[in-house]
């Protein structure tokens, strides 16, 4: 069975390490925050200028001056710091964030990512995504393996305008955990109950399949 959004977030959360500074994109990546193991301390960076993002506020705590990069009202945890957008992207561009999780339309075997623009559709803008993929060494893309129409999002070469070139090494889809290296996709894990054949069928770019593909553990 394909992973649910919650399961996707859970699988991504397994890549967290104690003491990590993490930037979570909008959508599924945001859910990762719900699965930080209790044994671990991580700090969430929100690129509008907050390091140490906490949970949503209660009705009483709500404050228009306290938002995250998704423009949602949030709180700050103990140990948080707040700064300008230039400082925020100095952190990001300078490679100080340990892990970045974001969604995508397409990823290819060269580690290219397309996530911000579909020609012919209205262009809303890249926000901070281009800086995030350029600045981070450790990026996880999380998305569905294929479109609603069954078209693979894991390609030999991205068809959409790129967000970043040669920067993606890890992809968690609803079907598989895949790494990118040497111009190929490497199948590392499959979602529980999903067959290797199905993953092969829905992966357009070259996929290296080992003899044994373990199921994801939750």
């Amino acid at each position: 069975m394909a992973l649910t959004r919650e399961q996707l977030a859970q699988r991504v959360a397994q890549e967290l390490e104690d003491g990590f500074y993490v930037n979570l994109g909008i959508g599924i990546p945001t859910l990762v925050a719900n699965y930080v193991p209790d044994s671990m301390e991580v700090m969430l960076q929100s690129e509008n200028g907050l390091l140490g993002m906490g949970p949503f506020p209660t009705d009483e705590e709500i404050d228009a001056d306290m938002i995250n990069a998704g423009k949602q009202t949030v709180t700050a945890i103990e140990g948080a710091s707040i700064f300008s957008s230039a400082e925020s992207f100095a952190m990001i561009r300078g490679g100080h964030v340990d892990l970045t999780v974001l969604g995508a339309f397409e990823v290819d075997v060269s580690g290219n990512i397309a996530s911000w623009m579909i020609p012919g559709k209205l262009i809303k803008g890249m926000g901070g995504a281009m800086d995030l993929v350029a600045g981070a060494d450790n990026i996880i893309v999380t998305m569905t393996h294929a479109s609603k129409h069954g078209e693979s999002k894991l390609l030999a070469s991205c068809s959409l305008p790129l967000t970043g070139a040669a920067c993606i090494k890890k992809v968690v889809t609803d079907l598989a955990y895949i790494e990118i290296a040497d111009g190929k996709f490497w199948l590392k894990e499959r979602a529980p109950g999903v067959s290797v054949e199905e993953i092969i069928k829905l992966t357009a770019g070259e996929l290296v399949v080992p003899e044994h593909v373990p199921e994801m553990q939750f």
Partner: protein
Amino acid sequence: MAGFNKVVTSYEDAMAGLGDNMTVIAGGFGLCGIPENLIAQIKTMGTKGLTVVSNNCGIDGFGLGILLEDRQIQKMVASYVGENKLFEEQLLSGELEVELTPQGTLAEKMRAGGAGIPAFYTATGFGTPVGDGKEVREFNGRSYIMEESIKGDFAIVKAWKADRYGNLVYRHTAQNFNPLAATAGKITVVEVEEIVEPGELEPSQIHTPGIYVDRVILGSFEKRIEQRTVRTA
């Protein structure tokens, strides 16, 4: 000694000198920390042909969005403009030009503009449409593109507290682009929630030193929330 009394008392005075076809840099992220009354004053003035540099363009009916109603903005430099129907219409009809700029690059362009740095290199946008036509250069085996700085005829800024010297502090994440915008205007105008006595702001805790600020005005703010999200207590 009028020397460092930068406080003005009317929005007319605050925005005096703004003319058609000027470039305005605005602080704020979404609707958070936007100079909402200074924007309203620009609407009142009816200034046309503006180039506006700001991370976003407000929403329909609030923030920079209101400057679209009478087609006052000719060109928008922003990282994300997704929340605005009027924006979409004017973009599709060709009345409005937009230059999409990655958020970190936009922040750094403002800072560089204020800091006398005409251009810098960044990996952001290399190999993407953002890099098209820009100089590419390698440093330590990695490719970077050259980005030029931005300066404005005016910068409009929202801060929390100011003193008469124009020293500013921002509140929570309403800081965002404001301190960068503040450095990059030929004329920098700031609206604040509170004007404090000189000496009340601790010198080493000032976010924007007054040297960047030309005019300060006391405002009252709606502070509209874009995405009200709560948890149950």
